[in-house]
């Protein structure tokens, strides 16, 4: 197991929290969704403004600038895709994380 895969559960849980915040839903509301759920699916309902909020929050929390590093925005494909994109770029959770 490498450093990236060890951080997956932490990153995925945090991504779900940031996502819930971005689409203005209750924390925990998205926890039951499979990781393969598309961010643009109606269950999540990401659109351009909430997408901007999500990318800003991911940048703040993980220091990963998805908009600049992923020109195709493939990371927005699903919860799993965004988790993978972020996790491979952060070796360990930031010490001032929650």
């Amino acid at each position: 197991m490498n450093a990236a895969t060890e951080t997956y559960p932490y990153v995925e849980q945090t991504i779900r929290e940031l996502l819930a915040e971005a689409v203005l839903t209750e924390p925990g509301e998205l926890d039951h969704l499979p990781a393969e759920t598309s961010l643009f699916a109606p269950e999540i309902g990401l659109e351009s403004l909430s997408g901007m909020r999500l990318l800003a929050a991911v940048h703040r929390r993980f220091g990963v600038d998805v908009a600049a590093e992923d020109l195709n925005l493939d990371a927005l494909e699903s919860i799993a895709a965004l988790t993978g994109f972020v996790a491979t770029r952060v070796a360990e959770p930031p010490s001032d994380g929650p």
Partner: protein
Amino acid sequence: MASGSTIKCVAWDLDGTLWDEVAIERTDSALPQPTAEVLRAIDRLAERGVVSSVASRTDPTLLTALQQRDDLASRFVAPQLAWQDKSVSLRRISEELGIGTDALALVDDDAYERAEVRAALPEALVLAPEQVAGLLDSLPADPDTLTPEARARVRRYREEEQRKQAESAFTGSREEFLAWCRMRLRLRTAEAGDVARVAELAARTHRLNSSQLAPEAEEVAAALAQPQRWHVPVAELSDRFGAYGLIGAALVQREVAAEPDAWEIRLLALSCRVAGRGVARDFVRWIMDTARQAGAARVRLVLRPTDTNTELRILLRQCGLQAGGAWDEEGRAVLRRELVEPLPAYSPWLSRDEEGRA
């Protein structure tokens, strides 16, 4: 520092500039009479697409008196009357109107106030009252070169003020507010009268601009003259507060040598004033509809990511447009989307008038 041609709003000082007296030193509650010369300058600016506001270091309660005077209320948007630095007032105007501080000018008879703004906002233009004539001379005098959107800017900024107030007072959800606004989107093919505005949108939009392709008016006109090669769709928006005018345009090539069954969106440009209302998505959806009805199998879109168009990139991704191939040396890629797949839904809060189908 800003030059005359980039100025969108002039903020006027009151005492000693708009009128000769000092308003709060009057014994009655009436406001002093503005000088005819300044009122004329304000109207000439408005004809050139430059709106006027107020930046006065004075008693904030004078605002009510200002708003009750028709000759003043109709001329000023987002007036700032407060015991605060003029640079603070200019920042407020910039926020309320959604324009940069580099598009603002202050006219003030007080050298201290001019110096304060020069120091705090070096990007803004700072003028003494006697320099206003020079500003007017530097603006394009020919009203024919002004688009209807530029000419209607004063009215539109006032409507925007009302919208912002209504939104902050609205108690329901964002979607309920959007529905309450009764937005109507008119989707049609561009006509000769739209050429200048299409070129202006292409040149002046950044946030909702896909490729930064900035065709001259002649090139837009040339595209209109070849409807078998080019589709030039435009979008106009209105709501319960008024009309936004023509807020979206695209240049769509109906023939792509490499992919004969594809339409290629070379440029998608929408005013940022309509961001966050589903307008851009519905416009893209309508272009896809039109392409599909004309027999295209897929839509291509030339995308050039910038620091400012991330929002549009997310929207395109949401609409199913994805980059298949490589990015070229200018940082562009071609996004694609098959039209056999279900198209993105139209926004339920927007009603649409569609005409001029290609």
